[in-house]
């Protein structure tokens, strides 16, 4: 295992896309220490900011408050990154495989445009989780993002495939312009959920205020959700699916696009 411990919080955001198993797995201890990071426009070395232990491993542990460390695990394809504490923007962006686990909070663009792998955040996330970057046609195209706390604006914006599950409440525009995939909102959402969504599924376990461009369809327990319940259950994220517990109200939209998406609102029995 490679262990990096942040010596002190950088004054400005530190761009550190080398903090990835793909980059570090084959490197010696000295080579890891010499990897470049960018503090603003200045190129620095990893060991200017981190105490480095270990070498030759695709398991990477980052300690200290890395709130200002950006691009951890960018584009990673394998291995495991464990952040003991907080992490900065763009964590796991473009990743295609492997696992990232964060014990604290993360800021915006978590798993942006990822296409595989698993990200689990024990705390809260910022906005644009799994989203498309500005001007980009598609957000995440596969993989799983689990946020146990709350999340910010535009969760899953333009996502195409994959799963985002958020334990706490999310802010406005969850599923904005969604093209596919599944967002599970265990704690509900604020306004304009599913705005301009074309396809995909938003599941909410708490009642939410729906846009008038979503039409009520029926109340049922879709079979496909049982597959997702099993998959998420393996990851410790339970969603209800049994008739005895309740049913989902299905709303289709967003008719303003017009879209073929759906919002499933859990309606517990009794």
């Amino acid at each position, binding site marked *: 295992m490679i262990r990096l411990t942040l010596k002190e919080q950088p004054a400005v955001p530190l761009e550190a896309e080398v903090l990835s198993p793909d980059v570090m797995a084959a490197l010696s201890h000295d080579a890891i220490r010499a990897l470049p990071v960018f503090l603003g426009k200045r190129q620095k070395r990893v060991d200017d900011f981190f105490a480095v232990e270990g070498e030759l491993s695709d398991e990477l542990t980052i300690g200290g408050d890395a709130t200002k460390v950006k691009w951890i695990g960018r584009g990673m394809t394998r291995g495991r990154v464990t952040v003991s504490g907080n992490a900065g923007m763009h964590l796991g962006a473009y990743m295609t495989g492997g696992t990232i686990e964060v014990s604290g909070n993360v800021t915006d663009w978590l798993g942006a445009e990822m296409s595989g792998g698993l990200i689990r955040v024990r705390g809260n996330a910022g906005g644009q989780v799994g989203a498309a970057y500005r001007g980009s046609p598609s957000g995440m195209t596969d993989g799983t993002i689990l946020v146990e706390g709350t999340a910010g604006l535009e969760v899953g914006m333009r996502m195409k495939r994959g799963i985002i599950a958020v334990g706490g409440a999310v802010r406005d525009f969850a599923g904005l312009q969604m093209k596919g995939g599944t967002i599970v909102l265990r704690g509900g959402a604020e306004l304009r959920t599913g705005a301009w969504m074309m396809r995909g599924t938003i599941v909410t376990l708490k009642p939410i205020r729906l846009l008038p461009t979503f039409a009520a369809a029926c109340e049922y327990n879709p*079979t496909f959700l049982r597959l997702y319940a099993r998959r998420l259950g393996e990851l410790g994220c339970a969603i209800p699916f049994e008739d005895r517990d309740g049913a989902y109200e299905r709303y289709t939209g967003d008719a303003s696009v017009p879209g073929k998406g759906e919002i499933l609102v859990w309606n517990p029995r009794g």
Partner: protein
Amino acid sequence: MERNGVRIVDTFAEAFGMRAARVVITAQSPGWARTAAQSMTGFATSVIGCKVEAGIEAELLPHETPDGRPGVSVLLFAFDAEGLTRQLIDRVGQTVLTCPTTACFDGLPHATERVIVGGLLRHFGDRFQSSKFLDGQRYWRIPVMEGEFLVQEAFGVQKAIGGGNILILAKDQRAALAAAEAAVDAMRKLRGVVLPFPGGIVRAGSKVGARRYKNMIASTNDAYCPTLRGRDGVSSQIPEGANSVLEIVVDGLDRPAIEDALRAGIEAACSPGVVEISAGNYGGKLGKHHFHLHALLSRQDPSPPSMNRSSSS
């Protein structure tokens, strides 16, 4: 060789290379899963007349199925992947899609050869269908009056063996049927095989072609028809004391599965009233898979296993 006083003929069952698919049908209750499976495996006794051989492999508990509901796994066998695909589309479309509360999944997820089934059945949705993509697999959600039918886009197809068999020759019809029923009960406890004929038993075994009708692909196996013993031109294979013969045909995903089934079937069929256990073959000229009864029972396999056994999903 004898088993429980029953003579085991030193012969072999001749079987053929086929292609197989495993379909997992789930439903709200075991009963509805079984109903769909029975409907799907109807009229699927022999590739000669039905273009496919199919049967129920096992009833599955909720933890064994992809959606956590009770299920049934069905095995289908055809001569090639193309024919099997046609049958899958027709049968899933007509018997599973239409059956209340069912969903349909691939039971050979590790098979490298895959054929599109749900990806074609989706057209029933008239563009109201939608899909979900989970763990590398696409599932189609087809709106139906009851709710939604969920079917996997592609199903695995693998090499398999069809036509393993035993013949039970007994002193009378009652003893033959009792022995065959016992054999079927024993064989149906095993995974990886199905017995495609009614109740798992065939009373009308066939020979290739016909003596007098040129256009017949198959005709009655006169050598094992007790009513034809002693008739001119019939080389009867029925020993003295035997007056009724029943056959059990086994299709399996691989050689070990068929061997286990034949062994279990023979052991169970050696009951009072049974005179002899034999097997059907064509002199070894048509099928490349030969199951020698003596070798099976002495657990000596004359040829190596041809395929790995697949497990249920």
